[in-house]
């Protein structure tokens, strides 16, 4: 596996509040990394720093060999950030929103793979309706599709299972695992669902107070999966000092 993301000494502050305080993170092609940690640990900010939507105070981010500060467009070609449901444009339909993102990415139309994902997530029937009339779950599905449009090599997902019905959540998990298994896609998933992290991730990173507190590699996770008890939960509690 080769390096896809290299984040070095990443620092982000909002005013006087230091949200990220020197994060080092490397992700290889075909890795499924879960980012866990308490509220306010900096998970969402880290995703936005990697996507280029949160300004860095220090450090640098390199995606697929492109420095995010020097060549942001080339670096962003390799990144897909799922859109937060409240940020979606309520005056457009789901299909129009997908076309807008496809056009911005330089694609001639909505890729068939994205439409197929919509079918998998049971969103096709409402794609021609205004987003204003979508439920939270529908908006979440559309946000996921927007992040995955064009299948960029690095997917950044922030609690993507929030609001999804069990069938759609399972379908999306299966889709993610198959994308990663093909080797071309890596996933960085910020989540509080420790069971998803434990079962599907190849690495879990615990973030606390803007720093990486601990990480568990594939071998350790494999050991946890074989344990009858929810081991990641226990391991995280120990690492947090609870």
């Amino acid at each position: 596996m080769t390096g896809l993301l290299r984040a070095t000494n990443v620092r982000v502050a909002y005013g006087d509040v230091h949200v990220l305080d020197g994060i080092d993170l490397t992700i290889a092609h075909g890795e499924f990394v879960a980012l866990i940690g308490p509220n306010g640990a900096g998970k969402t900010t880290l995703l936005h720093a990697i996507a280029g939507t949160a300004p860095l105070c220090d450090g640098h981010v390199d995606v697929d060999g492109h420095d995010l500060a020097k060549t942001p467009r080339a670096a962003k070609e390799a990144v897909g950030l799922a859109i937060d449901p409240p940020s979606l444009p309520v005056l457009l339909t789901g299909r129009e929103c997908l076309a807008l993102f496809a056009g911005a990415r330089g694609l001639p139309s909505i890729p068939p793979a994205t439409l197929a994902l919509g079918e998998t997530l049971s969103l096709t029937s409402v794609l021609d309706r205004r987003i204003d009339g979508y439920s939270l779950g529908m908006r979440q599905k559309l946000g996921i599709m927007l992040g995955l449009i064009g299948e960029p090599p690095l997917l950044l997902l922030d609690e993507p299972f929030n609001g999804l019905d069990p069938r759609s959540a399972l379908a999306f998990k299966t889709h993610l695992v198959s994308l990663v298994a093909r080797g071309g896609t890596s996933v960085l998933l910020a989540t509080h669902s420790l069971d998803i992290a434990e079962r599907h991730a190849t690495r879990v990173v615990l973030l606390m107070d803007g720093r990486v507190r601990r990480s568990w590699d594939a071998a350790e996770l494999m050991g946890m999966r074989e344990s009858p008890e929810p081991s990641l939960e226990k391991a995280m509690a120990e690492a947090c000092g609870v």
Partner: protein
Amino acid sequence: MAFLRMSGIPVLLLASCVALACGDLYAGYGWCLAAGALLALGGSYGIVHQRLLDALERWRFGWCGALPAVRGAAAYTLLLVTIAGLVASLAFVTALLFGISASAQHGGDRFYALAGIGLALVAGTAVAAVRVFRPSALARTHHADGIREPVLALPWLNDARLPHLLDWQRRAALVRWRRGGSFVMVGIVLAAVPIGAPMLEVSALVLLVLSWSWLVVVMRASADAFVAAVRLLAAVPWDAHSARMASLRYPLIATLCALMLMAIGTALLRHGVVALFWIACAGATSAWPLVRLARATRVAGPRA
């Protein structure tokens, strides 16, 4: 902040009209005062109507919507803010009017100007408040305004580099226009015209007032929609130059249409100075939104 938003724009709108109405030009162009009063009427109605609807919606459906507030508390508070905004606008207009007219050749006419513009401001605000707070309006859902499509679909105007940005801008403008009162303004303008006024000049005034108000709405809505699009697409590798070009299509077409209507209006009015005034108004209206459109691609992304 709500107070400033409620009062700021009508005050700016009135400032230019009052300056023109009370200057030395007043004697030759009595219609300028009428135009100022009509703008005060239409502008205060449109702006107060939109601001009240927005505020009421935030109150009902925003984070505080589920709080056990006393029935009618929102309407009562907003009404007080509206009255305060109105009083501030009147005070500002009075001060401005007296300041400007002190050295004007026809300074004695300031009382007529003040009465005309003040009454127009009060009437516009009152009509807006009544329309927003009437029971049937309060019962409407907050989605209703965005559902209807524009009369003419313009798919050929879409830019392939940012498809549907134009639709976004058009719908945002449409929602804002309908919230601002839309064609109700025609009725208000006509109601304010003195009996016996020449029909040609009345038509010209209606055309000028409406086209300018429409341009204000379109330019602001287009800029707001584009700024929102830039934030939405912050993580996407788009080309800033192409985006700016795509964002200008709808505002430019709208400006051309508005200028055509204004040209017809000024031709009917047959006053060169009035034409210059309206062109200056159109330019001032479009300048800041255009600057915002140009600057939007440099806006930082959302905070995590």
